[in-house]
């Protein structure tokens, strides 16, 4: 029936006929005028990149032979999140959701589309297409503020991000302990004391450490407090033995003395 109007079109059908989630004034055309989004390229969107600002938009589209990347920016940063998909053939998740992630791989939002709409990009020549904020700005309702309050994560020297539950583990002579609470603050103490058995520590993993056996006792007798072990010929109160143990020039001599009876 010509001119028929569906009173309650389904959500995705309704948005396909409008520029949503782009703002009504978006031109959808790249800076160089080479390419243009269709009004129905995206059906819905949701952005929650951590520390993102206002006026979120598609800042660039990088078209490669094997991968197409959509880059999202805001008023302060032209790359707050991105998502990629394969162009030939177009592959997107079954539910049409393109997963946006930030530079650390954290979820940053969702662009809802479908494979039929993504075919548009397969027709774009290989290259990088930049867009102005005015051209591709999204409506404000798609943005969920996610301020960078508190500690969002910890970066190591090689820029690896840890989130969730962080384990700080001491090793190789570094000892990390919780010292309780002080003035409402949890105290984590770090000591650097080395490894007493450093040779074993270094060599055992390579099977190059030979355990040592030290002399602690002789005939179950330990040394004195200075580590000295005393050999005596007999009880110190007895003087009728022929044995003599003497120390001459650093050599311990054991002698038998006396005269032969004939």
């Amino acid at each position, binding site marked *: 029936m010509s001119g028929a109007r569906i009173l309650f079109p389904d959500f995705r059908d309704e948005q396909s006929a409008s520029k949503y989630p782009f703002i009504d004034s978006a031109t959808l055309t790249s800076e160089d005028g080479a390419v243009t989004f269709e009004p129905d390229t995206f059906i819905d969107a949701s952005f929650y990149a951590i520390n993102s600002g206002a006026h979120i938009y598609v800042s660039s589209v990088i078209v490669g032979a094997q991968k197409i990347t959509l880059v999202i920016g805001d008023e302060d940063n032209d790359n707050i999140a991105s998502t990629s998909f394969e162009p030939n053939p177009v592959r997107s998740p079954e539910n049409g959701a393109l997963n946006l992630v930030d530079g650390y791989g954290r979820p940053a939002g969702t662009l809802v589309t479908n494979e039929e709409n993504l075919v548009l990009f397969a027709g774009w020549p290989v290259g990088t297409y930049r867009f102005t904020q005015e051209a591709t700005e999204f409506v404000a309702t798609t943005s969920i503020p996610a301020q960078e309050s508190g500690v969002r994560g910890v970066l190591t020297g090689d820029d690896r*991000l840890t989130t969730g539950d962080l384990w700080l583990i001491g090793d190789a002579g570094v000892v990390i302990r919780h010292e309780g609470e002080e003035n409402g603050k949890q105290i984590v103490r770090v000591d650097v004391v080395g490894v007493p*058995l450093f040779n074993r520590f270094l060599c055992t993993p390579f099977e190059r450490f030979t*355990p040592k056996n030290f002399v602690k006792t002789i005939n179950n007798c330990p040394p004195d407090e200075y580590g000295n072990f005393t050999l005596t010929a007999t009880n110190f109160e007895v003087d009728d033995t022929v044995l003599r143990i003497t120390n001459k020039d650093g050599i311990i001599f054991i002698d038998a003395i006396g005269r032969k009876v004939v």
Partner: protein
Amino acid sequence: MPRPGFYNDNEYRAYPFIFKPGQANLLPYTAVVDCGVIMGLDSEFDVSQHVVWLNSVRRIGNSFKFDLQTNAPGAENLPLVFSRAIDAEEWQSEYIESAPYVKDANSCAVEPAWSGFLVTGPLNELLELLPQDGEISLEENFVLEPARIQSLVKSYLRSITVGNMSRPMARSACDNTNDGARAVIINARCIAGDIRFKEGYNAQINQLNSANEINITAATDAGQRPDGDLCENGSEIPFYPDEIPPAGSQFLSGGPACDELVSSINGVQGPEITIAGGTGVVVRADAETPNTITIALSENNISGNC
């Protein structure tokens, strides 16, 4: 002519769920007019793999239960169950939180694995489908629109657990005990709130506010100065309050102390000590009895000094 509102629109379409042919025969669109969820830190939710769906609607007595389900690993066994009186007015909303997802004994989870809200519309059509106790199983016919989901996966640092790798332990050459893989000895779990790093022995901590950076390094005599306690303990620090040395040792790493070893005999110090036989005495160290010194009277003993 007044335009219908957002909820009015949704009474007559699948939203907030993805449209699927035939789904309206299972559940009237009027029942649910809006819904949204937040997937928590531990939910392991990935929008390209996981979905959220209305799994079933049950009637129990005078209330309806709406079961929201997900296949995200950290939340799949923790459905969100929304309750609504059968005579509830339209546009009522309810916010529900699941229990935390405790993956293992090391989990520090205290917040819900996921949470969400659900807004119901007029329930008279649903009441006709469920005039008495029963259940409508929807399976995965009512999948939530992906843009109605916010993921908090990887979004913040929740806690710090501190510990140390187990010590290398002293063993004798005859001890065949295998050291095995070194284990983590936990000192304190799930520390949260304001945290202060404190310099201990030889530790130097620098905080660079401009770069949002904390640098922890070793420097001789930095932090707490080495003291008598550290010296007496052989420079060892207990990994946990009640740590005690192994049997037969005064050190946490095991092994003897210097004054427990024989370092000299009759005042003659090592590393090489010679024991020699004098008049009438023979000191032997032969190959037949290794590691043994034999001290005996000589065969022609008592022959000298006649």
